[in-house]
């Protein structure tokens, strides 16, 4: 499979199995150079397996895969010098200090930055930005979980790779560390680095990613820009049911007023409407309330968010699990 230079990663019908269990069940991916791509999905969806296959840690069991124009597994020596990897879980030689760890990593890379005897500015800068600068002489075993995670990120990025894989880079970080991590990732992206990231924080994907894929049970359920993902999702309008109307009254009224758009009434005194054309629905709703003399309290309109899309896919997963 040949890769046009526009694509950092191309995968077609990619599969990866552990014994009899197929964790990745035929996914297609096209990640453009310089793009920031986020892979979302519940635990066990297959994100890490996908990442490790793209990284060349595991051999794909089916399909075709090209990373920076090569097979990442069989042509590891050609791909790796241009790639930075932050695994979901990885270890350190705990008895080394932070500085020794960074220096070893540089010495193991073919990057000219790793030339003997000097720690490049990128490393110093990254450690400062991730608040590790005063930890250089600390042994890695003594670092907190969050500090180790940040050191992980430093190692994945110090050689200025063209393509960076980050598997849950911010899981377990406090909000301040997460913000620092985001800043670093944004700087990387600004410098043209292609970034593939997995995360459980949807706002992270919303904030950073050019494109998002949501995985579910080894497949990509949806994929696109944030706008594309939420485009066809209904907008939610909710308000409190006026005391003078019963649930049945309002149900009937809304059916005629709002029309064929999807409609849902919730028990109690809350009413929730899922509509595809929010402006039209809202106009009609308010017009009806005014003309009938009803007062609608607590009106809120909420645009579908990534979290709605995600919840819907995760719910599909639950249904499937119940069937098993």
């Amino acid at each position, binding site marked *: 499979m040949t890769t046009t230079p526009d694509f950092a990663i191309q995968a077609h019908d990619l599969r990866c199995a552990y014994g009899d269990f197929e964790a990745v069940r035929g996914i297609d991916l096209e990640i453009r150079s310089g793009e920031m791509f986020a892979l979302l999905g519940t635990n066990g969806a297959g994100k890490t397996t996908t990442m490790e296959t793209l990284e060349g840690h595991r051999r794909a069991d089916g399909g075709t895969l090209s990373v920076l124009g090569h097979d990442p597994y069989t042509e590891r020596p050609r791909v790796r010098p241009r790639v930075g990897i932050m695994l979901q879980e990885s270890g350190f030689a705990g008895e080394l200090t932070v500085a020794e760890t960074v220096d070893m990593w540089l010495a*193991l890379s073919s990057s000219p930055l790793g030339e003997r005897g000097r720690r490049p500015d990128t490393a110093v800068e990254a450690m400062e930005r991730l608040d590790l600068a005063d930890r250089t002489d600390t042994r890695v075993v003594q670092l907190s979980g969050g500090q180790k995670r940040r050191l992980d990120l430093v190692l994945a990025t110090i050689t200025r790779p063209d393509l960076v894989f980050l598997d849950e880079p911010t899981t377990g970080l406090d909000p301040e560390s997460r913000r620092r991590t985001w800043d670093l990732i944004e700087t990387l992206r600004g410098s043209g680095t292609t970034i593939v990231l997995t995360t459980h924080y949807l706002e992270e994907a919303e904030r950073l990613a050019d494109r998002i894929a949501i995985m579910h049970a080894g497949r990509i359920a949806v994929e696109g820009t944030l706008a594309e993902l939420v485009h066809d999702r209904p907008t939610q309008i909710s308000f409190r049911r006026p005391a003078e109307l019963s649930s049945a009254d309002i149900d009937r009224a809304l059916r005629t007023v709002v029309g064929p758009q999807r409609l849902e009434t919730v028990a109690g005194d809350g009413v929730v409407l899922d509509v595809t054309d929010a402006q039209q629905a809202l106009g009609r709703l308010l017009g009806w309330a005014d003309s009938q003399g009803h007062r609608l309290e607590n009106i809120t309109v909420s645009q579908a968010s990534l979290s709605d899309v995600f919840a819907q896919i995760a719910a599909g997963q639950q249904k499937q699990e119940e069937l098993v």
Partner: protein
Amino acid sequence: MSTARQTKVIARTEWKLIARNKTVLFSATLFPLALTALYLIQDAEGPMAAAGLTSIMVAIFSSMTVYMTVTLTAVSRRQDLYLKRLRSGESSDVAIFAGITLPTALLCLAQMIVVVVVLAIIGFEVPVEPWWIVAAALGSIVSCLAMGLGTASVTPNASAAQMTTVPYFLFVIGSVFATPFADSQLMDLTPGGAVVTFARLAFDVPTPGSALTAAAGLVIWTAVGTEMARRFFRWEPRS
């Protein structure tokens, strides 16, 4: 980025780790040295005794310092996900293997040299053809290194290593002691028998074995270990 340079960087790091882990340093050094001293005070004389003592020394050092340490190192570095870390960089698999095992092999070699120097100083029997001792030492170290990686490939975790290393360790030591009794060239094909044959050649003691079959024996065990590692080695605890 050459495998040689990667190996050097990983080995240098591994050496630091050994030097900072007093327990490993202690058990990998002191125990074999003490065992050898125990044999030295037996006060045996003559080339036959010298050949026996030399083979025991080589076998104990390579099986304890190299075989057991290599197995344990590979398994615990895998368990710590340090191997996976190394493998997420540019290092080749060969560089990682060589890097984490080389320091132990060098440590073993250093121990042997110390013992040889001590023996020379106290006026021990001088070998007629000393290069056979070098052959025994290097061959035994290399085969123990390969078998250590092979054993690590079938050892799920560090505590299991206490069990999985027992058979080959006993085999090495046992075959050293069994060789004088078996009195057959077939013993050359065992890791201990090969060492005994080389030691006898060094001190010009009659032996049913030959350099060729003894070398073949050590090559076989090196190949067995290498093949086990090639087939079964896992870079991470779960895979």
